[in-house]
């Protein structure tokens, strides 16, 4: 295992064009193979942070590096490389799945990085089997259930064999069975994961380590099981364990 962290963010600050400041110097380091939950109340800047990871939002101050290479949104060539390494699964699978069939959608990323023919086919099928959706490869996305669409969305990103998988609210709108199935899939993957979520039990189930983004900085960085015992600390960042849930 390499010692270069999968993700390293130092002093990242960001203000929206209207002047509203969202991030005030975020510091975060994630080692290869770690699974980390990014928690935080609504409007804490979680999505803004995520969009920095592959250079969709240009870094204004500070730096983001993925597996040792700096994300520089002005350098088109390096950006292409970064986007192959950072796989973002967005919250609404309908935003993510835009091609006429499941297989074509999964092939979209690898195609952009230059794969063709049999190799493209293989990568697509591998990614689909990892999420258990291979038999749906020729179906149009709108014929799938929400949970299935979310799984395909994960496959679209896995197909690019990313260094780090970033999931935005992976458990939202899923029924309990789909939620568990997705957890099983995520656990089986040998990849660094950053999971943005409000679903604290899900974070506990999947991620050893949790960080809280609050007030534009990483306010807390702890083992998930320890953190969730500190009810008051959670409450000060507008986070609460669901009713009946105790550690």
């Amino acid at each position, binding site marked *: 295992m390499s010692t270069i962290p999968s993700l390293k963010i130092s002093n990242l600050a960001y203000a929206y064009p209207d002047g509203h400041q969202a991030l005030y110097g975020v510091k975060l380091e994630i080692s290869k193979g770690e699974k980390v939950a990014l928690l935080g109340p609504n409007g804490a800047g979680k999505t803004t942070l995520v*969009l920095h990871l*592959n250079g*969709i939002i240009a870094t204004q101050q500070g730096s983001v590096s993925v597996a040792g290479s700096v994300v520089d949104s002005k350098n*088109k060539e390096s950006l*292409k490389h970064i*986007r*192959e390494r*950072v*796989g*973002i699964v*967005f919250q*609404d699978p*309908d*935003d*993510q*799945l*835009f*091609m*006429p*069939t499941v297989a*074509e959608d999964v*092939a*979209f*990323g690898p*195609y*952009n*990085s230059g794969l063709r023919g049999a190799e493209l086919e293989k990568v697509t099928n591998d990614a689909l089997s990892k999420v258990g959706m291979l038999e749906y490869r020729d179906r*149009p*996305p*709108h014929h799938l259930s929400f949970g299935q669409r979310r799984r395909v969305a994960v496959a*679209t*990103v896995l197909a*690019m064999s990313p260094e780090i998988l970033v999931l935005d609210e992976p458990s939202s709108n899923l029924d309990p069975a789909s939620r568990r199935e997705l957890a099983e899939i995520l656990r089986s993957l040998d990849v660094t994961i950053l999971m943005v979520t409000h679903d604290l039990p899900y974070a506990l189930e999947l991620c050893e380590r949790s960080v809280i983004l609050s007030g534009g900085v990483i306010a807390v960085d702890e083992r998930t099981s320890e953190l969730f015992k500190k009810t008051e600390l959670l409450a000060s960042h507008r986070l609460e364990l669901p009713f009946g849930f105790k550690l």
Partner: protein
Amino acid sequence: MLLVLIRMAKLPYRTVFIRSLVEIPFVLFALLMPFFGTGPKVQFLGLELYEAGIWAGTGIVAKGTIGVMTAIILSASTSAREILIGLEKLRVPQPLVSIATFMLRYLNVINDELGRMKIARESRGFEERGLRSWRILAQTVGALFIRSYERGERVYLAMLSRGYIGAMTKLSDEKERRLATALILPATAALISISTGVLL
């Protein structure tokens, strides 16, 4: 020729007939044409008909029937996705094919959204009646437009995240070319028209 095609595509004649009923208004219009007009007249079954009208009417019916029939055969025998692949192969500009592809994908999503908005409206006692409801309906259309626009932005971000740099994935397999098959229909039509022209 079209009948042969329907036969080859294994389409039920009934479906084709029902779908072709859209043509009726045009046929009626064409039937009226010989009664109005100017110029030389001919006697037919005791009716006085204008010659120019007859030709124009026959022209409309013939062209209309051919157009409607081909459209029906195409839509009934080919899936929307195959049509897109076809367009791509016919070298229709890539942006146009992409737009059509996205339309195909998101038509359902937007339709669902519209359905949900309708349910939400009606759940709060809205009745779709009279001039007053138009204002609300117009607002719904506006809201739908904004939502779709924003969705478009999110989709674009998702595309960028997966390395989109301006060129869409080719839908079709480049190697597969069936020029000869594709030419059968236009070639037959050309042959028939040329031979009729020569004979007359």
